[in-house]
């Protein structure tokens, strides 16, 4: 198991945003994390990346207890992420932005020009190589999202967390991005994706975890989850007259 969550909880002022979640993720798989608004998806993401420690429970990565490891140290260990609200460094070139991942990630290269050389391939992978020397601020949204992904990949992650990578993309961009995510998985990188676009996640994920009101209410393959009654209730709401 690459990632192992054991009874992980996080409370904010008494409100349990994540309540005793346990799950395991095998290496080389795509895990889709879904759930209605306020389900705790982002909080769970932040617990895995180390934004804050859990109130209870333990997190194991690659066999090591990382429960109290700082976020940057988790990145060294091989956990990288993208953010929903992309924030590239606007005045730096596209290549320099990607190279940041190579400088501060796993197996880091501290020399700038060497880091740039090594990051170029991640720009090729996401389709941004032709724009490598442009300033990041000149990119459109979909390209800024690609850059976010290139920077995370440059950190040489074992586990890559994608936060709403598909949000705001048009349908053809969604398809391109889904294919890209699959090709990253095929390189052996394990992926956790949080998405509102449930159907897109179902198209590529090996395993789905459904959160509702902080609790893990279902876990299984996309086909199992699409037909799960408690998942349907969580999404459509319960009838007043049922």
């Amino acid at each position: 198991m690459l990632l192992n969550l054991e009874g992980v909880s996080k409370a904010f002022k008494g409100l349990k945003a994540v309540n005793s979640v346990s799950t395991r993720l095998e290496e080389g798989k795509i895990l889709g994390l879904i759930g209605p608004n306020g389900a705790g998806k982002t909080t769970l993401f932040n617990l895995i990346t180390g934004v804050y420690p859990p109130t209870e429970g333990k997190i194991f990565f690659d066999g090591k207890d990382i429960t109290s490891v700082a976020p940057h140290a988790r990145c060294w260990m091989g956990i990288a992420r993208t953010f929903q609200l992309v924030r590239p460094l606007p005045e730096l070139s596209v290549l320099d932005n990607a190279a940041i991942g190579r400088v501060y990630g796993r197996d880091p290269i501290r020399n700038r020009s060497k880091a740039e050389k090594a990051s170029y391939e991640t720009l090729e992978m996401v389709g941004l190589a032709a724009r490598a020397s442009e300033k990041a601020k000149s990119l459109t949204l979909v390209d800024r999202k690609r850059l976010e992904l290139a920077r995370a990949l440059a950190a040489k992650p074992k586990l890559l967390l994608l936060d709403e990578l598909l949000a705001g993309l048009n349908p053809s961009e969604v398809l391109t991005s889904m294919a890209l995510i699959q090709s990253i998985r095929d390189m052996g990188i394990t992926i956790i994706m949080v998405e509102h676009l449930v159907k897109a996640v179902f198209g590529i994920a090996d395993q789905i975890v459904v959160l509702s009101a902080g609790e893990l209410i279902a876990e299984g393959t996309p086909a199992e989850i699409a037909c799960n009654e408690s998942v349907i209730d969580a999404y459509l709401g319960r009838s007043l007259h049922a």
Partner: protein
Amino acid sequence: MPDFLNVDAINVAHGDIQALWDVSLEVGQGEIVALIGPNGAGKTTLMRAIAGLHPLKSGTVLLRDKALHALPAHRIVEQGVIMVPEGRRLFGGLTVMDNLELGAYSKRAREVRANTLELVFELFPLLAERRTQRANTMSGGQQQMLAVGRALMGVPKLLMLDEPSLGLGPLVVENIFETVRQMNQQGVTIFLVEQNARQALELAHRAYILEQGRIVGTGLGDELLRDDRVQQAYLGICPAPEE
């Protein structure tokens, strides 16, 4: 049903993200119409566009034959199109009474304020009891009532409710929905955005399904309750097609 609110082929974008694509819908006078759809579908954006809080790239919003899309938000309120925003957005440090009076800010509403206030207190006796209490010291359900009461003080012809059930317990939600039904019976036309699709469909005469910024279905509320398209909009087809 005579035309009342007519939204015709509107396109709305947040920066370079297009949120609504050629969305058209109508609300007839006296109807309760619900807009349902998964997170991020564009429901709130659509409501805010009607209220004049989001510019349109193209398309029109008409109330009878008045072009709302050409008016700033406060002029749209004067036309009787009033929104209860998601999360209520009350003036927390002000009293219940202050909040209600601010709802009647437009000239049209101010002239009949005393009468409207009586009607609001009839509908929500609790607000009359709590009139000197500060809004931010009330419970979530009470605050939602106050937000609806504040909107009613503007004498709406069309009342738009954005996620009125969000964050509230089941009993409070039932109460709020019952109030919506009562307001409608008293002649207020309702346009409702709801995450709780099933309850919204039970309440509404008609509904539209919004998915990724596009209307993907419409029908009578109780028809859609049994329509697979609703579940598909949220969770895809069950069983999922084999890859």
